[in-house]
């Protein structure tokens, strides 16, 4: 416990920076707000790295890596048995998330100093970024389900604010609303799941819930509802919240639209940190998921696998550089979910858990790099559309190099980071379920194909008619690119199995050579295909699209999921529920209120003449009343 008291500042500092820059954004110079925000996040970066060094440098005890709670306060006390706590919980995954968030957030803060320079609302942008960092730190450090829910909603709000940053653009406003409503809808399931789980187990606390020998979840496991245990229902509902935040099929529709926000925001929130909160949530409750012995984990695995494949198919057909990256993010998060779903608890069985967390870590690095690189490209050519780019490797050498590293990392080419994490995921999937392994292998090939399609179309091919010669971004923008490229290249060598395992006991990490060869072979095939099709301009891609016209159009229009949602909301929700509810509200609820008011007015108008102002009339009626009462009393007394 002792020695970690400074971790409270990791959470509090961004909040203070948010208050400072948010309240003074009208009065201080934008540049100063940016520097305050960046300074604050850099301090939390130092503190996070210090925490990680301190945590992982002490050797774990026999029972595995410990769970530390350096700070815990009662926040809301309802009665003796029900109280909501706010605290800080340190264990391998929360410390790992601290490092991920602080590294990516710092890079994005620095990068934004260049990317957002001169934008209206620069100070507001930094205030929102600080709010987001605060919420995300609070989320990963949560000690209990209620705290995680609280910060879960806070990251949702900051995501909403940042997607809608350009609030004068109708598309950005629509995207922000869509993101908020879809994730909020999923969070409804999350809340019901929390209530179910805590009602039956009697606690919100992660330490109590996750104790494999504890009695906390036995009650929930024994009660059944509609053929499954209440515990399974609760976990599936909680996963619904996670699926909403992590853009799992079919709750993914908000993520591609969220690209309306500024590109660094996409890198931070919609690629590296917030969207993996769903994965983190399942990992946080993993012992419960594992012990539930029901279909909960299979649902996680299949949702992940379907999303991974589905998003990869769409990513192959998109033309907007940020949308390709958005679908790629969905696909990779699907990978992480899939790995969690196929994982077991013990040393060898728990490979999926380690692999998922490892992939989360490496993905955060190279996906943030991809988005920031895409931002540099957009900054140079002032367009998102790949059709207006080409031959940029000559103009943007640094961005090109960093982007290539990220593409190799995500495609899983050794020795870049993605290779190691993807290999572990594939190994875990093969042990558990060959069908999922097949899907994962296919997705690995498609990942390489769509990423290098993007790479060749942007950086190779012919020059376009640019408004002005594209030029390399300023140093504040390319420095984070280089740092992230270095991390993407080397962080695969971290022996993750030593640190992060399902049962907390260090396990050796080893390469399965057959899987490694198969996966990299498929990736190389994908890259070669992309090279053949897109390196030099040709009409072959168009011919292939033509020959697959139906499927191509289906994928290009994102399988019409948005249209299906619209049809359902318009025809079922609006016509079936919203309009009748509105009619009832307007005519029955409002009508009865208005009726009461109308009757009151009418009666008042009819009887107001009695108050005439004539004192003698009042006196007369008073006397008459007194006489009448006297007569009444006398009559009663006589009886």
């Amino acid at each position: 416990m002792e020695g970690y008291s400074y971790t409270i500042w990791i959470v509090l500092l961004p909040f203070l920076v948010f208050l400072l820059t948010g309240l003074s954004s009208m009065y201080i110079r934008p540049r100063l707000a940016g520097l305050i925000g960046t300074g604050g996040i850099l301090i939390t970066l130092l503190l996070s790295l210090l925490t990680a060094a301190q945590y992982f440098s002490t050797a774990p005890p026999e029972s595995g890596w410990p769970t530390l709670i350096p700070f815990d306060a009662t926040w809301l006390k309802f009665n003796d048995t029900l109280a909501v706590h706010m605290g800080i919980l340190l264990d391998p995954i929360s410390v790992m998330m601290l490092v991920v968030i602080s590294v990516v957030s710092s890079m994005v803060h620095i990068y934004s100093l260049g990317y957002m320079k001169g934008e209206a609302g620069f100070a507001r942008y930094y205030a929102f970024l600080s709010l987001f960092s605060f919420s995300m730190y609070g989320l990963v450090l949560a000690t209990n389900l209620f705290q995680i829910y609280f910060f879960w909603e806070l990251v949702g709000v900051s995501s909403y604010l940042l997607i809608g940053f350009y609030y004068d653009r109708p598309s950005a406003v629509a995207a922000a609303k869509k993101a908020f409503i879809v994730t909020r809808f999923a969070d409804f399931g999350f809340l019901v799941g929390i209530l179910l789980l805590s009602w039956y187990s009697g606690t919100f606390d992660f330490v109590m819930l996750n104790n494999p020998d504890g009695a906390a979840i036995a009650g929930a496991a024994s009660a059944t509802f509609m053929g499954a245990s209440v515990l399974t229902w609760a976990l599936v509902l909680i996963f619904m919240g996670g699926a909403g935040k992590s853009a799992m099929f079919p709750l993914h529709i908000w993520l591609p639209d969220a690209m309306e926000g500024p590109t660094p925001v996409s890198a931070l929130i919609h690629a590296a940190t917030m969207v993996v909160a769903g994965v983190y949530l399942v990992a946080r409750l993993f012992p419960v998921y594992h012990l539930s012995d029901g279909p909960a984990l299979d649902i996680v695995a299949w949702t992940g696998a379907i999303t991974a494949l589905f998003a990869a198919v769409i990513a192959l057909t998109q033309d907007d550089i940020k949308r390709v990256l958005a679908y790629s993010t969905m696909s990779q998060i699907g990978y992480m979910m899939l790995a969690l779903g196929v994982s077991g608890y013990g040393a060898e069985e728990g490979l999926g858990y380690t692999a998922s967390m490892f992939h989360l870590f490496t993905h955060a690095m190279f996906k943030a790099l991809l988005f920031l690189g895409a931002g540099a490209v957009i900054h140079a050519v002032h367009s998102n559309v790949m059709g207006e780019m080409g031959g940029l490797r000559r103009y943007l050498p640094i961005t090109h190099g960093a982007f290539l590293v990220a593409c190799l990392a995500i495609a899983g080419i050794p020795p870049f980071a993605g290779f190691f994490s993807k290999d572990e995921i594939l190994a875990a999937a093969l042990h558990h379920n060959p069908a999922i392994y097949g899907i994962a292998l296919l997705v690995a090939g498609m990942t390489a194909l769509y990423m290098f399609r993007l790479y060749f179309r942007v950086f190779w091919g012919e020059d376009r008619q640019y408004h002005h010669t594209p030029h390399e971004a300023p140093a504040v923008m390319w420095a984070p690119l280089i740092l992230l490229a270095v991390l993407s290249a080397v962080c695969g060598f971290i022996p993750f199995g030593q640190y992060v395992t399902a049962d907390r006991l260090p396990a050796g990490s080893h390469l399965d050579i057959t899987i490694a060869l198969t996966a990299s072979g498929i990736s190389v095939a994908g890259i070669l295909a992309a090279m053949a099709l897109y390196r030099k301009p040709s009409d072959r891609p168009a011919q292939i699209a033509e020959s697959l016209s139906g499927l191509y159009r289906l994928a290009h229009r994102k399988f019409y999921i948005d249209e299906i949602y619209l049809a359902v909301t318009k025809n079922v929700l609006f016509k079936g529920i919203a309009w009748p509810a509105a009619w009832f509200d307007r005519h029955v609820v409002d009508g009865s209120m208005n009726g009461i008011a109308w009757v009151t007015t009418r009666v008042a108008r009819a009887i107001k003449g009695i108050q005439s102002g004539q004192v003698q009339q009042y006196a007369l009626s008073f006397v008459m009343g007194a006489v009448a009462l006297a007569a009444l009393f006398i009559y009663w007394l006589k009886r």
Partner: protein
Amino acid sequence: MIPGVSLIEILAVSTLMFFIGVYGFVTRKNLITILMSLELILNGAAINFVAFNKYLYPGEPAGQFFTLFLIAVAAAEVALAIAIVINLYRRIKTVDVDNVDTLKY
């Protein structure tokens, strides 16, 4: 205790005074006469106090004290009421109660 006069006769007089007062209070239009009617009502009540004290509890002074208080309060009340009437007259040049009806709906 007045020889040859019973309690009922005294009460009859006081009741008569009271209702003459009430009648005057309701029918007269001049504020001064309304005040005079009010005095009749008060004095009718005062006679009741004295009469009951004298005839029912001759040894005790409570009824007489009430009457003394009543006279004092009536004097103060008249002084106040006259002041209001004078001010009203200065403002609207009339003491007719029918014209004093601004406090209505």
